[in-house]
């Protein structure tokens, strides 16, 4: 059988949509099989702090590592070397001490050191 994209514009359009859906489906199956069904993520809350009233705060760090993957969460202030802080396995949350400041970065890496996500806390100007 010979595949052809000739025919009416509607038919051609539908063929393109079908090919796209098939490719998307294959990618989804491949990611599910490999366990890479979701990208790792990292959320820091709050991600902005008030410079004057609260220059150092506690923050909640939420993470999600796809199944069978283990990572490490590092914390560092801008210009300094990352320090390991927490192991990241599955879904989790941890609270820091009240030492997170403007420029503090939370970094999620896999065990080979590959960077998976990076979040940096910034500050908002003083209201006065």
């Amino acid at each position: 059988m010979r595949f052809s994209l000739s025919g009416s514009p509607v038919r051609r359009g539908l063929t393109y949509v079908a090919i796209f859906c098939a490719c998307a489906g294959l990618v989804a199956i491949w990611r599910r099989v490999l366990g890479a069904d979701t990208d790792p993520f990292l959320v820091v809350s709050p991600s902005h702090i008030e410079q004057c009233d609260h220059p150092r705060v506690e923050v909640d760090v939420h993470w999600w590592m796809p199944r069978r993957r283990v990572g490490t969460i590092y914390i560092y202030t801008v210009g300094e070397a990352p320090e390991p802080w927490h192991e990241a396995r599955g879904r989790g949350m941890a609270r820091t001490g009240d030492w997170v400041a403007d420029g503090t970065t939370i970094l999620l890496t896999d065990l080979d050191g590959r960077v998976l996500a990076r979040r940096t806390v910034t500050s908002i100007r003083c209201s006065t």
Partner: protein
Amino acid sequence: MWRYRVWVVLVAVAATTVGAWWIDRLALKVQVNSYLFSYGFWASSLPVCVLLGALIALTGRAALSSFLSLALMACLCLINAEKIKYLALPLTAFDGYLLKHPDWNTVVLFAHYINAAWLLLGFVLLVAGAVLLWRIERPLLIGRVLVRLGCLAVVLGVGAYLLFGDMGRRAYSEELLGISPASPFLTQFRAGVLGTLLHETDYMGQALDEPIDGRAVKQLKLRLNLPSSDAATFAGIPPDVVVIQSESFFNPDVLEEVPDTTPWLPSLHQATAVGVSGLMTVPTFGGGTLRTEFEVLTGIPLAAYPRMQFPYLQISRDTLPGLPHAFDDAGYRTVAIHGNSGEFWNRRYAFRSLGFSTFVTTHEFKPTGFKDGLFLSDHSMTEEIIAQLQQEQRPTFVFAISIEAHGPYKGAPVNDEAARMAIAMPAGLSRVGRDEFSRYAYHIAAADREFGRLWSYLEHRGRPYVLVFYGDHLPGFEKVYRELRFRNGQPAESQRVPWVAVSNVPGHGSTRNMYAWMLPQTVLELAHVKAPAYFSFAAAAGREAMGEADGADNSQLLDGLYSAARMQLDDAFDDDVDPKVRHAL
């Protein structure tokens, strides 16, 4: 058609400014969109837009101009990242002083930190990308030379107006950019590298404009209660004095994983046991030798001049008070020795101002001098010191600055591979870390060996001598500090270097920790040479500062000390306190 051109230029501006900010963030290793569209972003984007506009006017092509602008930004941020990696400091406008004094030896020294293969690849990609874009991109303005030149003039004119002068000073002010005087990293994080550089250019020429608080000086003089004269009494032949500033020297046994260093640093250990020694706080880390050197030679804490990065490049005086002048006044011949170009860091001019009568640089070294690794060996430097001491009967003050142990270390050659392999490696280092550490250890073992050889020579020479040896700063490692820990739990930048003095002149002291600017007083004291009043004052203030409990408010003491240092630089420090003032205080 004009609407299309405007759209193309606007898209290029948006892509280039956001791309430049993204590159900026990568160099700082922070989230790429942090502070995107903040004031710092716009302030950093302005020079990018000026460059882009100028390139569009010149080439007539938006994509090509955007590509070249981003390539330039990438180069700048790469230099920034490399400086952070080795010196733990971001790029500052003061680094531009190096460009004001171009010297081939400076280029060669910094070239050692660049991976030539990556540099070549980057250059090839840059040229290929530029040629490709030149060929495939449809020009916005074909011909129309006058229109393009007009655009160029407008862009440069508006750019100069906005970036420099009063307008620039307001736009790049401390308040608007969120400058943090305590942290250059935080400053760059908020303002971007370009915003920070433009902010700093405003006060680059004002490094010496620091206030002098005469009252604080007088109060400190009273508090220290120093004798009015510090006259030395020494009846015998004045000793020869040799001070060695050893490149990147520290004792690695301050690292938890490093075993006893006595087998490969025997002279340091022996001198510590029999001489005067201690730890010294220096004003630099990983590089910036001249900062420690300046403090040791002048007794002036660089903290008194927070905007001074490179003192020899930023101070232009015919005479600078300091250690060489003190020895000269005492009848000494004063010699400086350094196995590099005299133009590096502008030393030739600075040493003349400081009062050295002779400056021996690479060109004057004996023909038998040789390199070990990338730089002239410590063995060759010792030979020069001995040659200088043998030249005449007058007592001699030699200040020698070594260079053999200068970085980079990773993969750098050494003359004796077997000796390198014989040094015991600390546990916990990666392959790169081991390579880096072993090559560094090899060079400082050579420094220690040469220190021992010189010590032995002076001991057997039959003349009085004082030999002082110290490290100028900790080395700039790429991996070692990340993989090992310091016993005191402090980061590498906060560590101190060892200093040690041995002598056959009577009257030694014991262990003394100090700041680098306290060393000249100690050197003169050990040599029984009359110290200028300022040296005694600074040393006493330093001891007072070190004796204060951590966290104590020593701002009054520092105000007095720094003001005294500024007076000293102006050659206006007076050790007497007017009795009326004494009474009033």
